[in-house]
């Protein structure tokens, strides 16, 4: 195992100092055989943690694999990702979550923490064996039918109650199904101009409102996936003011992009929940800044070329996110003065690790802590080139955009997964 001396990094954007890594942990003093990383001008952050990643394996290895997705994660500065359950087969048994977890360990680019499905086959009818997944080697703590909403109120209530037995969290994809049948984009003036069926904000907000009340009633942990509207932020802020056990995430694309991009009918902008209005973007930024929204989660959703090279209505929903998330947060939150780097560490690592109950992640950059960390060059700028991404897919909505910041290095328990801005082959 390589030992490191990281010279002159700014931990969380603070005063520059040297960081020493020995035997996979942050150490008091340099190891004699340490390799030096010149980190002058670089920000040191705890390794990023993604709560919402679609790795597509098993089942859609043409779009992504655990290996390719975790390389993309490392390239984006992540040391842990939560693999969503909507694979084929669905991650609704101990067997499947253990398979994904093992593939992550074999790949070795970041910790792959499986999310278990709430219901069998994410069909929204019967509870999956949540306890078996919790007790498996994968130690599942977050359960989600993401892609689908647990819309049945009684089933949602039972799921929230049931996961209390092992300290679980139910992560809800909030989408009232009847209000969003055939929905193609944000409902508003533009959806009617373009003749695309609307996905109204109320379809998200109604479920979140119901769920925060259920969380309060059951005393159980609710996490709101990818909230996207101003109204959703208000509801979560209210729930937190009441002390309800609720957390929420926002995606990088909802922090930066608006529905106007749909005008050209290019399906690379098709995503669920859809891109919203400028007011919504302002509201989710404000919510992330004041802590109403706990974390940025990518909802990294790889799709093969043919799933986007078609008519809007036929195209798959989803966007890549792992390799651009930190840059988007720098642009939308840091450059705007809404968050400092300590805030970025909090929203992209500390709180995410806490929600996911990952004890080795999101830790302070202090002696004795696991050396999971990311070195970011905030002064760099790069034009996003789909072809240069590590994901197996190319569906980034940021193609051609110049974004600030570049990940210089990522360490996973002291092992470099990214060095000099390049993913280290293992």
């Amino acid at each position, binding site marked *: 195992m390589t030992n490191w001396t990281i010279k002159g990094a700014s931990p969380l954007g603070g005063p520059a100092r040297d960081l020493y890594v020995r035997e996979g942990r942050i150490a008091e003093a340099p190891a004699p055989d340490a390799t030096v990383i010149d980190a002058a001008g670089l920000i040191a952050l705890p390794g990023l943690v993604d709560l919402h990643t679609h790795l597509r394996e098993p089942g859609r290895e043409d779009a992504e694999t655990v290996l390719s997705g975790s390389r993309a994660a490392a390239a984006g500065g992540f040391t842990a990702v939560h693999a969503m359950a909507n694979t084929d087969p669905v991650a609704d048994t101990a067997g499947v979550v253990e398979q994904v977890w093992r593939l992550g360990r074999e790949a070795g680019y970041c910790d792959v923490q499986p999310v278990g499905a709430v219901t069998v086959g994410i069909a929204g009818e019967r509870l999956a064996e949540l306890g078996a997944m919790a007790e498996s080697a994968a130690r599942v703590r977050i359960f989600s039918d993401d892609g689908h909403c647990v819309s049945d109120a009684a089933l949602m209530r039972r799921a929230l109650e049931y996961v209390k037995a092992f300290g679980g969290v139910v992560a809800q994809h909030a989408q009232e199904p009847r209000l969003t049948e055939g929905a193609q984009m944000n409902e*508003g003036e533009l959806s009617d101009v373009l003749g695309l069926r609307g996905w109204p904000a109320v379809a998200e907000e109604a479920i979140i409102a119901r769920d925060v009340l259920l969380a309060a009633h059951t005393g159980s942990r609710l996490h709101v996936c990818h909230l996207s509207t101003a109204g959703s932020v208000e509801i979560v802020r209210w729930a937190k003011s009441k002390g309800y056990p609720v957390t929420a995430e926002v995606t990088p694309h909802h922090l930066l992009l608006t529905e106007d991009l749909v005008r050209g009918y*290019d399906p690379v902008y098709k995503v669920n929940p859809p891109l919203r209005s400028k007011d919504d973007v302002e509201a989710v930024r404000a919510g992330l800044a004041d802590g109403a929204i706990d974390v940025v989660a990518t909802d990294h959703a790889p799709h093969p070329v*043919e799933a986007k090279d078609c008519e809007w209505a*036929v195209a798959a929903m989803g966007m890549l996110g792992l390799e651009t998330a930190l840059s988007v947060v720098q642009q939308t939150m840091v450059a705007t003065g809404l968050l400092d780097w300590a805030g970025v560490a909090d929203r992209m690592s500390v709180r995410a690790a806490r929600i996911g109950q990952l004890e080795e992640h999101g830790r302070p950059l202090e002696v004795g802590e696991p050396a999971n960390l990311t070195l970011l060059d905030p002064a760099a700028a790069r034009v996003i080139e789909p072809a240069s991404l590590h994901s197996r897919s190319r569906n980034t909505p940021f193609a051609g955009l110049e974004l600030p910041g570049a990940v210089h290095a990522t360490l996973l328990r002291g092992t470099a997964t990214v060095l000099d801005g390049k993913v280290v082959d293992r």
Partner: protein
Amino acid sequence: MSAGPRRHLLSTADLSAEDAMLILDTAAEFARLADRPIKKLPTLRGRTVVNLFYEDSTRTRISFETAAKRLSADVINFSAKGSSVSKGESLKDTALTLEAMGADAVVVRHWASGGAHRLAHAGWIRSAVVNAGDGTHEHPTQALLDAYTLRARLGGLEGRRVTVVGDVLHSRVARSNVRLLATLGAEVTLVAPPTLMPFGVEGWPCSSSYALDPVLPKSDAVMMLRVQRERMDQAFFPTEREYSRRYGMHADRMAQLPEHAVVMHPGPMNRGLEISAEVADSARSTVTEQVANGVSVRMAVLYLLLGGSEPAIGTEDEGERR
């Protein structure tokens, strides 16, 4: 194809008043031809027009086919099966095939909103693209033939009051008409139950009303939209009878119109639902004229896109937006 920027007709929003008037004036010239024993012109000889239809619409296809043939173009009818549920060949692969066949213009009818836009701008083909109806988005040649019909019947469009009645929410005909008629100076009023009124209609260049009767005496033309019976099952309105009573055009309502006013319908009609037989067959009805005018207008569009000289119709290729 000749050099220069690709030209398409995708949306009436892309047409300036001059573009639209040129199409209508050109159509008027072609209409005179229809009275002659030999109806064919050699204008587009050697050019290939493909009718690419993802949705059955015999009347629109025949209208375009007749228009192209009167201009001596070669016509290929390509009816592509496949929907969101049963996928056939992808639009991209079909487009590449048409490109290889050397199509000069593709007339596309698609069930997906944006289908024509995608075909024109995704970089798959170089042909001119004419939108013959895309989902619930637009149907620009229908709006052009409606404008042509209105101009012929009312002697002009500037300041004329046109009322569009029915399922505006799902109507590509209404969208194209609102934009075109506003550009040409007509005053449009949309009439629909609140469930079938577009969400952001306040931002449209027209006024709107939930009630039909007060609007009738102030209308120079009333355009009835086809109402699909399945909308009833989706709770957009309670029953056919109630819809017909509140929004249907029947003899009593026709009597409230000014003497000169006309009643239009893009067809096919649901007689007894949005329009009564009495109205449909009356002298005020322009339904059959609309069909005849459709051929002239589509001739004009094909001529101006493929053979006609200045000025252009449609927009220049704007490329992919970021």
